[in-house]
């Protein structure tokens, strides 16, 4: 499973780089990049850090941090 997650994270990183260069509108680019970043963070937290199987309080704490920070970054950029 961790090998699959690693490949997905690598591909999403390359996608992030290229989305920034596309002809899409600025708003769409930012939404896609932030969405991908949020997904990548959750993958690292769940599968690399191994929080997927620990008590929900820790998962909520980590989810809240990433959701809050990435949402506020989005607010500042849009």
């Amino acid at each position: 499973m961790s090998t699959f997650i690693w490949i997905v994270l690598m591909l999403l990183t390359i996608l992030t780089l290229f989305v920034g260069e596309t002809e899409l509108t600025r708003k769409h680019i930012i939404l896609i990049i932030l969405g991908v970043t949020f997904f990548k963070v959750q993958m690292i937290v769940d599968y690399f850090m191994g929080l997927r199987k620990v008590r929900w309080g820790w998962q909520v704490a980590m989810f809240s941090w990433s959701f809050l920070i990435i949402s506020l970054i989005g607010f500042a950029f849009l």
Partner: protein
Amino acid sequence: MDLNMDTSRHHLPGDLAIWIFIFAELSVFGILFLAFAFARKYNLEMFNEGQLALVKTYGALNTLVLITSSYFVVNAVNAIKSNLSKYCSRWLFAALFIGSIFIIIKLIEYKEKFAAGYDLDTNVFFMFYFILTFFHFMHVILGMIILTVVAIKAHKGEYSSQNYTGVETGASYWHMVDLVWVILFPLVYVMR
């Protein structure tokens, strides 16, 4: 509040203290990220112009490097859970080797920036660029020191499938370093 009360779930990887430290670190990085994002909102032209001076490829390469290094650390944890301490130490040394590529790329990037005349005093964008990336760089160094200690102990056979909290503690810190960069890269290098 005891977050470990539910025994039907797995234990928290590593030492509890490292998780308190990780959350403290994430809070500081979170504040720095938001300071960057909101400073940009009021200095849009300066930030967009400053970002053009950065080499996105360096940022992307460093993201791939840290993700790969994190993946190797996951393999090290899996190895020690199977009581394979030699494999554990090999994966950790491989993670350290990959981690050192991050250091090299970052130093090349800093050298190029300084040679082009950019430093902390250039403008608000470069002030944030140097503070954010150098603060993260110091965490990479600390993470590598921790992983080196864990790798040496694993090589000496000091961990086993019954005793691997130290490996998980070092691994958790290293994943945090990776996680922070995953946000820092699009924020500083890509989004405009």
